[in-house]
């Protein structure tokens, strides 16, 4: 266990050393991903000039929605910082055969390919997420209780785990398909559905989407559940509402298990590109 922590720290440190040796690039990347988020934020500010909330009676007013965005930002930035770059490198390693060297190391292969590189430039987004969350809570005049914060942290963790599982499963698919492009695209297109509160999926089609992205491919859990944990007006009031967080825990475990199984299966299929 300690060995794994030490490997994680060494990889994080090595990545930082590397990023710092390309400092200009690092700063530019941080700025560009920050400005992407800020521009999106600008769009939502624009929307709230014309409508008081997203979805009538849902309680997603401007600052509640900002809290939602902040949560999404936290989860996405961690995924970007730790896993996204590794998923890309993994698919590349499958293509070039560089995975050979990972397979011969006396360490869990899935662990090692998941944390080999850190993308520190996503740290800016993470901090922006915290700032936005604090700002939104302040504007709402809402001080969360300790229990709320603990649950929030727990479900942010679950969200990260679900996204991570999805990414690992997609990366495993590359071993079969032998190409990576659409797989990361696929990830992007799926997670688009997690960008907004689940209430927006109404009507017959929306209902099906909401059901499918909750129970089949549980990406709607990722941001919705932790964001609800922190927002008093949206705290689960009925027992039925309690089912969602409980399901969230089960879904996290299931996702991790299924993706691990897929990854192992994929490794058996690895053919090692000849040099």
């Amino acid at each position, binding site marked *: 266990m300690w060995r794994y922590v030490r490997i994680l720290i060494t990889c994080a440190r090595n990545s930082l050393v590397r990023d710092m040796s390309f400092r200009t690039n690092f700063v530019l*990347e941080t700025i560009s991903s920050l400005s992407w988020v800020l521009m999106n934020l600008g769009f939502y500010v624009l929307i709230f000039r014309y*409508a008081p909330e997203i*979805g*009538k009676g849902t309680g997603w007013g401007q600052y509640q929605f900002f809290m939602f965005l902040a949560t999404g930002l936290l989860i996405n930035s961690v995924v970007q910082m730790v896993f996204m770059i590794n998923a890309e490198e993994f698919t590349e390693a499958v293509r070039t055969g560089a995975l050979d060297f990972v397979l011969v190391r006396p360490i869990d292969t899935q662990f090692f390919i998941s944390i080999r590189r850190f993308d520190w430039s996503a740290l800016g987004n993470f901090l922006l997420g915290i700032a936005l969350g604090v700002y939104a809570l302040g504007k709402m005049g809402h001080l969360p209780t300790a229990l709320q914060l603990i649950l929030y942290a727990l479900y942010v963790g679950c969200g990260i785990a679900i996204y991570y599982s999805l990414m690992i499963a997609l990366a495993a698919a590359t071993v079969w398909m032998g190409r990576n492009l*659409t797989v990361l695209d696929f990830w992007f297109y799926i997670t*688009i559905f997690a960008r907004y509160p689940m209430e*927006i999926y109404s009507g017959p089609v929306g209902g099906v*989407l909401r059901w499918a992205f909750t129970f089949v491919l549980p990406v709607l859990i990722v941001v919705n559940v932790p964001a609800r944990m922190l927002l008093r007006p949206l705290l689960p009031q009925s027992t039925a509402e309690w089912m969602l967080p409980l399901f969230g825990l089960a879904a996290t475990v299931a996702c991790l298990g299924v993706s691990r199984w897929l990854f192992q299966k994929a490794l058996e299929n690895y053919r090692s590109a000849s040099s």
Partner: protein
Amino acid sequence: MPLRWRLATWWTLLQISIEERLVYRADFALGTLMRFLPIVTQIFLWSAVYSAVSDSHDGQIVGYTYHNMVAYYLLTMVSRAFSSMPGLASGIARDIRDGSIKKYLVQPIDMLGFLLVYRIAHKLVYYAVAAGPLALVFFLCRGFFDGWPDSTTLAAYALSLVLAFLLGFFLEATIGMIGFWFLEVTSLLFVYMLVSFFFSGHMFPIDMLPGIWGTLVRAIPLHYLAYFPAAIFLGKVQGSALVWGLVIQAAWVVLFCILSRVSFWLGTRRYSGYGG
């Protein structure tokens, strides 16, 4: 280059790009379908937003009903299919950086002409591939449109799409030429992509921008890439405003055509000055 050769080149390019796209069938099928997923979430988002818009506004946002808004999104997708030039600027910048731009200097090929032909071939393949899914999406969403516009509007729409394609091409080509002066243009391109994504009207109709922002965005050419053709189709621009809009759009095309040529000429002169 005689026309016959030009056509032959064009045909070969076309064939190669089609083959390139067919090799990975899983990618191919998924990729085409996926492109339409973001619009699904947008439709739901706007549906939720409009549900909360107070009745005092007649359920409208800056003159757009919910149906208008969805129709607008579908139409900007068409605009972007014409005006987006994936890999053009970065390709030029890369050619400059790794020196392969030289091939245009020693061979009797006009680089911009060559790239334009290549781009047209690429676009045609894309339209051929996307036509089916696009038609399906428009058919499913036909309820969001109030029937077909009149033939004059349609003609103006078609013209603005062609101009949007040309503007997108020359604009991105000009940006790629900056690579002659600054070697690292990747982040610059990202900034361009970002600004263009928001201010071309791809993300929202630029009518929503308040005060000075709206004026500013209308003063730069980006909104001709996505917003303008869509607005024509929806009948938001009519009469003399329409004519002037098309004239200004054409003027931007001419300006960037000249700019890209001049910067290529200046750039190559500077380049060979280095003896690179």
